[in-house]
């Protein structure tokens, strides 16, 4: 053993680099395979016969896909706006407020959508709406999505409030700024990138949701993932590959933006 040179280089463990590379390949190879097949011109999905965009054209011309995509966008935009406002207020209360009692209870309640298995959330929401006789189509879905988007929007905002500390706000208070001016002139501008990151996360989580949407949606309010699931059940087709690739790329772009945004303001603190 040549360990005499560096007897305790504990930062290097043989084989770990290889394992990590294998895990990353395991995580990403299936996605690359999907994207490759989406550009395959053959109808026989797994036989490669040249590059083609025809399946994307076919998806774009599919009225059902367009209609359900519009539903998904309406729900995602509405749920993002509602959950981001609610989450911003909640984060301010948790980090800057004076929550003398029930702090643990409130934190636990807000984290509930992250902890309870999705299938349980899905069927309890379905039972709730049906027991009240609430059949408002898209509105039911907007409410259900707002609930599970709140914790995702809250996390980056709360982290930013904790990270930036209260010194600037205290300085403002010393200069006799009232609470509203303080918020408009100091807290909100500093918080803006985190609010944007939280909103993007909420948007992606809403756009990607499948199980809750499937149980809560009715005939007219089907979302895109629910429709794509129906296509998948009928079999592997090039159209499914193309629409899945579109959804994949949309999520990737938004999340990469949110994560990079998050890192930039973390460094600026």
């Amino acid at each position, binding site marked *: 053993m040549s360990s005499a040179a560096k007897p305790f280089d504990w930062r290097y463990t043989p084989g770990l680099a290889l394992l990590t590379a294998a895990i990353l390949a395991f*995580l990403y190879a299936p996605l690359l395979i999907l994207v490759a097949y989406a550009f395959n011109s053959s109808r026989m999905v*797994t036989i490669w016969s040249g590059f083609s965009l025809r399946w994307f054209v076919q998806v774009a011309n599919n009225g059902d896909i367009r209609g359900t995509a519009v539903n998904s966008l309406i729900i995602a935009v509405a749920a993002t706006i509602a959950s981001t406002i609610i*989450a911003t207020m909640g984060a301010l209360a948790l980090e800057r*407020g004076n*929550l003398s009692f029930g702090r643990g209870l409130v934190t636990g309640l807000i984290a509930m959508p992250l902890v309870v298995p999705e299938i349980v959330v899905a069927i309890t929401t379905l039972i709730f709406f049906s027991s009240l006789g609430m059949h408002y189509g898209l509105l039911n879905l907007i409410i259900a999505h707002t*609930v599970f988007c709140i914790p995702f929007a809250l996390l980056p905002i709360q982290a930013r409030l904790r990270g930036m500390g209260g010194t600037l706000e205290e300085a403002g208070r010393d200069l006799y700024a009232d609470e509203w001016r303080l918020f408009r002139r100091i807290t909100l501008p500093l918080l803006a990138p985190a609010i944007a990151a939280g909103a993007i996360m909420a948007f992606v989580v809403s756009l990607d949701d499948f199980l809750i949407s499937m149980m809560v949606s009715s005939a007219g309010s089907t979302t895109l*993932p629910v429709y794509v699931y129906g296509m998948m059940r009928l079999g592997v087709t090039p159209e499914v590959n193309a629409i899945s690739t579109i959804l994949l790329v949309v999520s990737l772009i938004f999340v990469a933006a949110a994560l990079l945004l998050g890192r930039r303001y973390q460094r600026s603190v």
Partner: protein
Amino acid sequence: MGSNRTMLLIAPAVLIIGIFMLIPMFIAVAYSFMTANPYGGVTPPATFDAYVQFLFQRDFDDSLVYSPDYIFIILRSVYLAAATTVVCLVLGLPVAWYIVCQTERRRQALLFFITLPFWINTLIRTYCWILILRDEGIANNLLRQLGIIAQPLPLLYHDGSILLGLIYTFLPFMVLPIYSTLERIDPRLIEAAYDLYADRIAVFRRVIWPLAKPGALAGASLVFAPALGSFLAPDLLGGGKKLLIGSLIQMQFTSSRNWPFGAALSTVIAVSILLVLMLRARRSGRQESRA
């Protein structure tokens, strides 16, 4: 900020989640004690039928016959969720340690790539494995072209493919919490252990693992809970024939139209997961107060 203003700010979050998530769970518990309406929903006479159904089936002459089918589905779900957790731990722990040992720049990049799949639609991530594993899929085609097999291997629609799908979905949930506990390890502890002639295995057993344990526990519950209730992996990769609790619950609200039984099943899952979380919170609370 005054406490009145604080209350006003926190109220919308508490009300929305309370009304549309907490109250529905209590309504679902109430539904589990009702009689099934064959057209969906429930009808008045309150019964324990839904819970009796876990172990017994009602025969044609209305007598109860012992039938362990549903118990087997529950046990299989617990077994697959536990197997997923163990595999994710075995793979996730070394990866988390590898990331901790890198330079700051590489750490950030690796964490980014481990986190990213978490935000991609689970529906699509699960579907990718159909492309790979089905009879005309890439794996079988490759094996056939290499001349290893003549007939396609049945790679889809069994417990193994469900397990693979679950591991693929939940692996990032294990790496991140372990990473965040390992990141705080004081390097001097490890150097001290090496100075005292500990080898790699001893350092892992005596220093790294004890410090990684809280993260591993957090990761285990983040993997186990959603894996137990998962719907997509058993449905798409198990072919919907191999039921797990998640797909069994979903069926009660669609094809089987037995809402009380579905509500009873999800009550049982929700209660058991809450119990585990409360136990963990109490244990970590006690550890903190001891420290």
